[in-house]
């Protein structure tokens, strides 16, 4: 290389190659400034500024895609190859949908730091984009920290809701620990190869480069590096056994944030993981493939099994996202170019479906964060046919029913696994998908084929189910629910469930919403932004299933990186 790290100077072309990231950063700063001038009550405009920034960044991605020169910039720190742009597209889509959800959510919940909320959404997206585009361990870590720090704060941004604070704190402590482990792994990888650049690592292991090392083995340092890197990444993608934080954080965080982070983090972490393991450490695959094989099986089995017993739909979706991480790990363990393009297709379909699914939860959630149990979904088709239909389409897709996006994603991953001699993984994946169908379809069954329970239907039954849902949070209170249910007023048309929202739980969890809870037993109607976002998610879920061609082509082009 002509330039050494000691003389390299960035040029204008370098800045052009990070155009989408620059736009997102600029929009974030603009939002933070605009927050000072926009009076309370009109903060919805901030969402508009954010969305314009996201759209501009999407145009930037489109420009770079059409430009198609796929170069690294800033001394090999970051790349604008198709893989980076593909993940930028997914992340920008996810943050765009999350931003569309936000005004409706903020209006109803205790988010008081609105300017900071919007700024951090964009900065989290920036961190994800940097992490997914990074071609150097240093930048992968800085991007990861940017996205993690933003998400810790976003999780805890509902200052008066206990579950939100709990989610932020849990995520902060556990995730910082995982970041430290990842950084340790990076340091050891640098120690064993002498470079932080991924292409440098790849070149270090190139056949014939170090014949002596290649025959005698690379020693324990490299093994420790790969182990620590694997643990760090597996935590970030919430693979079992590093999944413990996921349900609590996804449930506790503001739902608009959950919708965005559940997909954005996965896209960024999986792309960075692929760059590090499939690409840079590809020559050492005999050492890490078996580990990912085990983790993939554990994650598929565990995620699906734990999802089956959930009674809260938001929590169910959190476990389903763990299960989906398992399917993605199948592609990592298969480790072929074909499987990698399958992983990217899966990520795209998963992004579209999951933001939609959390959007429905957001639409049904009441102000106190309750109202998302299976019982609340009972008879939804009669009360809100539109929302129920959207949810049904998305759940069918998540279950992997053929003419939908979910089927396309699973098809490409499992087919690549079979072709790549991992029939075992494909079989387990397909079997666990069948298991997954059970809990997805159970929600649909609840929406279409059960009646909403009311007081006269029997307070005892409600008490029993409430007790079961309560167990999840470690505070079953059947007696309280039963006594409350017998006196709770049922409002015609909006009586979602006779379960009292003024239960002791909201008082217990130190929220202030108790003051407004009695008046708000039903979820308010959809805002314009939520409607637009849900429509977009549903339409894309169907469209990706019917005409997967373009996204498959793009994914295959991005995966060509592995073949080089």
């Amino acid at each position, binding site marked *: 290389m002509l330039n*050494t790290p000691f003389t390299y100077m960035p040029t204008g072309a370098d800045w052009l190659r990070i155009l989408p990231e620059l736009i997102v950063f600029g929009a974030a700063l603009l939002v933070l400034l605009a927050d000072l001038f926009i009076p309370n009550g009109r903060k919805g405009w901030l969402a508009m500024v954010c969305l314009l920034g996201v759209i501009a960044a999407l145009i930037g991605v489109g420009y770079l895609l059409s430009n198609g020169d796929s170069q690294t910039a800033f001394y090999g720190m*970051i790349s604008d190859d198709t893989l980076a742009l593909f993940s930028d597209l997914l992340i920008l889509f996810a943050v765009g949908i999350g931003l569309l959800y936000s005004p409706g959510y903020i209006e109803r919940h205790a988010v008081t730091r609105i300017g900071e909320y919007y*700024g951090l959404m964009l900065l989290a997206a920036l961190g994800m984009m940097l992490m997914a585009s990074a071609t150097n361990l240093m*930048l992968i870590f*800085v*991007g990861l920290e940017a996205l993690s720090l933003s998400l810790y*704060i976003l999780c805890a941004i509902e200052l008066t809701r206990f579950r939100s604070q709990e989610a932020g704190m849990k995520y902060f402590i556990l995730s910082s620990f995982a970041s430290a482990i990842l950084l340790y792994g990076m340091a050891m990888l640098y120690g064993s190869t002498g*470079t932080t650049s991924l292409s440098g690592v790849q070149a270090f292991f190139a056949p014939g480069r170090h014949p002596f090392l290649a025959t005698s083995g690379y020693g*324990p340092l490299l093994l420790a590096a790969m182990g620590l890197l694997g643990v760090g990444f597996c935590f970030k993608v919430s693979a079992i056994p590093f999944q413990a934080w996921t349900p609590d954080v996804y449930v506790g965080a503001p739902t608009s944030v959950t919708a965005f982070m559940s997909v954005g983090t996965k896209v960024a972490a999986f792309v960075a993981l692929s760059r590090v393991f499939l690409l840079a450490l590809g020559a050492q695959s005999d050492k890490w493939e078996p580990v990912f094989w085990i983790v993939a099986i554990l994650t598929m089995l565990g995620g699906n099994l734990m999802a089956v017993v959930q009674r809260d739909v938001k929590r169910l979706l959190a476990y389903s996202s763990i299960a989906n991480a398992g399917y993605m790990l199948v592609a990592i363990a298969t480790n072929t170019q074909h499987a990698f393009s399958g992983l990217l297709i899966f990520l795209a379909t998963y992004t579209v479906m999951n933001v939609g699914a959390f959007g429905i939860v957001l639409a049904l959630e009441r102000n106190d964060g309750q109202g998302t149990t299976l019982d609340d979904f009972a008879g939804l088709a009669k009360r809100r046919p539109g929302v129920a239909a959207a949810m049904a389409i998305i759940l069918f897709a998540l279950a992997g029913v053929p003419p939908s996006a979910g089927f396309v994603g699973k098809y490409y991953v499992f087919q690549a696994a079979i072709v790549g001699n991992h029939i075992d993984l494909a079989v387990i994946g397909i079997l666990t998908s069948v298991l997954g169908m059970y809990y997805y379809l159970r929600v649909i069954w609840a929406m279409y084929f059960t009646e909403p329970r009311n007081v006269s239907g029997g307070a005892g039954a409600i008490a029993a189910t409430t007790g079961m849902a309560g167990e999840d949070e470690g505070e079953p209170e059947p007696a309280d629910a039963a006594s409350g249910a017998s006196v709770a007023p049922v409002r015609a048309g909006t009586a979602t469930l006779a379960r009292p929202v003024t239960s002791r739980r909201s008082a217990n969890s130190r929220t202030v919403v108790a003051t407004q809870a009695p008046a708000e037993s039903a979820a308010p109607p959809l805002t314009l932004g939520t409607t637009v976002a849900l429509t977009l998610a549903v339409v894309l879920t169907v469209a990706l299933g019917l005409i997967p061609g373009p996204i498959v082509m793009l994914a295959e082009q991005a995966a060509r990186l592995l073949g080089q």
Partner: protein
Amino acid sequence: MLFQQIAFYVLAAVAIGSALGVIFFRNAVYCMLSLILNLLSLAFFFLTLEALFVATIQVLIYAGAVMVLFLFVVTMLAPSSNDDVTGRDRLRWQWGAGIGMGVILAVALCYAAFTGRLAADVKASGAASLAKQVASAGNTQAFGLALFHGYSFPFEVTGVLLVIAVLGAVALGRRSGAKE
């Protein structure tokens, strides 16, 4: 060489002992003090590796600024020495599991370290250019040149991290008055 070896073993003992102290002292202030000792011994490690700049930074930033901040917070919260914060009763099985996993990890690492080899000819790779630069220009200058040339971009992105941290402090730390 002998002197270096003696220095290594003394420093290693101090570093491990103080690290254990961080975990096992009951009084939080003692924990902090042994963490300072640990960081100082790491600084001496860097010195024995002739990484003068990193050693200085280690003392200035970690043993200095960061630890002062820690001590401020700890003494401000003023924990008394008989506060039992461990809550050991509920976590007993985790102790067993943690010790078991730790032993397995230690054995595996020892096995790998004593049967495998450390990569010896790393110098052939990117580290060589760094070594050359250090030899010709000196520690601090080589670090500065790398930071502001080849690694300038991650360094700049660290500025974004600072923005996020400030936003977090404002969003979570500021009193909102009516809502509390």
